[in-house]
């Protein structure tokens, strides 16, 4: 009987936590590489993400092949020679908020520090970046940008293209979450 009660309570609370869960499937991640010779931009609109307030957990996942470039050959080289997307098909982030707001309900428009493991090209790096979370009618928006250095993720850039690809690449994230 006691066990049943606990089970019931556990179930109940997990429902409560689920209500604090936010989902996105078509988030945008965009990167920009700028050198005096060439600017390269690519957009990925297939980023999926979950924010679980109850457990204070955040995760992102995006398919590398979903990056669209202006030049088809660049996109091919990005997948084939640099990110090796057949071998490492997706980039992920798993982490948590450093200062946890009480709940999503209390959220209005805040800068929050997100800390966790960013995994690109099969290499895990610990990152800590600030993002802006804004409450919306359906859920919330997450926006922010940070810098990724290809070198940190064992992405080899040969001397012939070194002048065209920046050593620090600006990545911006724009995700609209729906509460579920």
């Amino acid at each position, binding site marked *: 009987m006691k066990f049943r009660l606990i089970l019931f309570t556990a179930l109940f609370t997990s429902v409560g936590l689920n209500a604090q869960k936010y989902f996105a499937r078509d988030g*945008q991640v965009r990167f920009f590489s700028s050198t005096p010779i060439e600017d390269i931009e690519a957009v990925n609109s297939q980023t999926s993400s979950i924010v679980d307030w109850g457990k204070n957990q955040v995760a992102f996942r995006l398919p590398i092949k979903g990056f669209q470039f202006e030049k088809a050959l660049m996109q091919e080289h990005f997948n084939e020679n640099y990110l090796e997307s057949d071998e490492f098909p997706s980039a992920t982030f798993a982490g948590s908020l450093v200062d946890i707001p009480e709940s999503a309900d209390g959220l209005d428009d805040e800068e929050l520090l997100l800390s966790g493991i960013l995994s690109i090209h099969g290499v895990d790096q610990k990152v800590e970046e600030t993002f802006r979370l804004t409450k919306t009618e359906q859920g919330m928006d997450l926006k922010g940008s940070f810098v990724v250095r290809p070198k940190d993720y064992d992405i080899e850039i040969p001397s012939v293209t070194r002048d065209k690809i920046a050593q620090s690449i600006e990545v911006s994230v724009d995700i609209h979450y729906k509460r579920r």
Partner: protein
Amino acid sequence: MRSIALLCLTFFMPPLLAQNDLLAELEGMEEKKVEYVTAAFKGTKIINGQSSEIPGPGVLQFVFQHRFGSLSDDFFYNFLGLDNAQVRLGIDYSFNDWINVGVGRSSFEKTYDGFVKAKLLRQCTGSKNVPLSLTLFTSAFINTLKFRGDLDPDMVNRMSYSTQLVISRKFNSRLSLAATPTLLHVNMVPETQQNNTVLAIGMGGRYKLTQRLSLNLEYFPQLQKNNYSEGSGTSEFYNSLSVGFDIETGGHVFQLFFSNSRGVIDPQFIAESPGSWTDGDVYFGFNISRVFTLKKPDLPTYN
């Protein structure tokens, strides 16, 4: 007692697994899409023959094909064969992701050509599984060499045609192979011994040695003998055999190779290769391609 243990487990396990849980949940949410295999070959040609590739949609490609003179023909006197060079210049454009149209002009017999190349079936994985690619290439050639001081009025006699079906598969990120049944037809051949129609089955492949360097091999056996007169007798044309490297540098692909074929266009290299590797009738050649994006795709904007 057991239930308490179970309870403890359920209490203590989640925080440990939690991050993987969310990532696993995201993985589960991901829709399975059709993933087309890309970059089976670096260039639109393996060496002389077609690969399964075309430039991306809205991309114009300029191809410069160069064949030096034979290694066995006074190689140094002819400045490493440069003095006897043959050249084809070509441009092609992809209207979408499966159709490519181009024109070219080769110096041998002052031949102009026009072609259409279409990806009929694309190798893919994911929600749809297709093990190989089928690419159709069809081309018409016209020889514009002056004959007895002027152009032959009957232009049809100067036409020749090539149709190829490139059956290819990218086995892994390094190895891609292609079989290319080819039908050639030359409206008027220079000698009665020569066949007007030639069937050949091309075989080619590439193996990536590094990210930007690949080894390419190509062989085009003809299904029936094709002869030409030499002195008082006849000699057989050889099958084209070529070996080379692809070197990729951003927007360019350099293909450097040796071949017993001197001709650049299909009727010449498949059906009319007079030299054999064993006699040292080998030609050095290269293809250089450069692409220009004429029509940029619309990138998604911020929502």
